[in-house]
């Protein structure tokens, strides 16, 4: 079931925890199935992802520090990336030993750089680069115009690139 993989992947990257992603996806899927009656989208995959995405936000509002949800400005974003405690620390990444192991083995840096992006950029990167959704699908999932998808994607890539190049120079 490709949809469930996409849902789980998005939830994992948004919550940064496998256990939390499972809970959120299970809730969201069961709720989604319940309302299939009234479902009218032509793109069930995007529809499900939009529900999972909303469920992630709701879940984080309930369970996480509020500042995580705030759309961060550029400078704040950078200081967040540079904060090692945030990379491996208090919320999410370090909770799950299995996840840590996987992260240690593969592509540690890029993985962590994405995980450290502010949420609104992180979700765009995941939908575009990992789920490989088209811009109009991303617009549907996130509920923003295509123009905003493009500007956020440009911003997200610029943030990642700056950090990535810094890493490579070190």
């Amino acid at each position, binding site marked *: *079931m490709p*949809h*469930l*993989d996409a*849902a*789980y*992947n998005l939830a*994992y990257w948004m919550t940064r925890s*496998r256990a939390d*992603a*499972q809970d959120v*996806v*299970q809730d969201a*899927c*069961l709720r989604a*199935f*319940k309302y*299939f*009656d009234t*479902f009218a989208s032509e793109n*069930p*995959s995007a529809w*499900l992802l939009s529900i999972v995405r909303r469920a992630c936000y709701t879940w984080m509002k309930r369970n996480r520090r509020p500042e995580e949800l705030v759309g961060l400005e550029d400078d704040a974003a950078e200081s967040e990336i540079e904060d090692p405690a945030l990379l491996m620390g208090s919320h999410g990444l370090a909770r799950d030993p299995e996840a840590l192991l*996987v992260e240690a083995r*593969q*592509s540690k840096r*890029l*993985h962590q750089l*994405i995980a450290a992006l502010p949420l609104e950029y992180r979700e765009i*990167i995941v939908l*575009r*680069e*990992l*789920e*490989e959704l*088209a*811009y109009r699908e991303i617009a549907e999932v996130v509920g923003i115009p295509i123009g905003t998808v*493009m*500007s956020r*994607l*440009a911003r997200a*890539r610029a943030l*990642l*690139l700056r950090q*990535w*190049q810094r890493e490579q120079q070190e």
Partner: protein
Amino acid sequence: MDCKEAQQLRHAYLDGEIDPGETPALEAHLRGCAECAALFRSERALSAAIKLEVPRLKAPDLLRARIGRELARREAGGRRFRELRLLGVGWNPVAIAASLVLAMVASSAVTSSVMSGAQEDGVAQEVVASHIRSLMADHLTDVKSSDQHTVKPWFNGKLDLSPPVVDLAAAGFPLVGGRLDYIDRHPVAALVYRRQQHVINVLVSPEDKGGGAAPAALAQHGYNVLRFARGGMNFWVVSDLNPAELRDFAAKLKEATPDRTAPS
């Protein structure tokens, strides 16, 4: 085109989302502007590196199982069949075929005649729902093995029947595994076979349960369903496989199944 214009178009270009009419102007700009060209190369490298190196997580089996079970519990009455069918479309577009074919299984030989129209039957609907559910939540098997001697003992103690598990690989129907399912509010054994890319679910229940006055064969929403009784058990065979091959499968299954209930 100036650099500001090029900035956003670079991403659309990279992602294959650019309006073809704008491509020549952007390409000309990238040829002429070293700075934009360097940024574009970096962005392309970043995008490729993410796709290559950052894992796209797959949903754990446990999550699939949890969702599958919860759905099974909710759908147990068969009343929510419509949603399942819709999900079937959404989750497995190949699975919903167009034709409605009714086939009939005679008591001894498996023969068929084509009728028109759909015949409603609660249990048959549940059988189809079970089939769709198994594909949808990707909860096809609890025990995954092509070995009948692995699958059969797995059911021991889980059901009040011991389903016969036969090997039909030689006939082109390899065994995939088995799982527990619920039909007509009773736990049943589900045996999973495959014919090329088509999944065949065989639901086995005691003869007094879940049979009713159901027609021996019918089609539901593009799925073909066959039923026969053998050795004191009811066999429901459901698949999106074409009726002829499914009848062939059912005939072979019936033939290979002992006619008496094995002492268990």
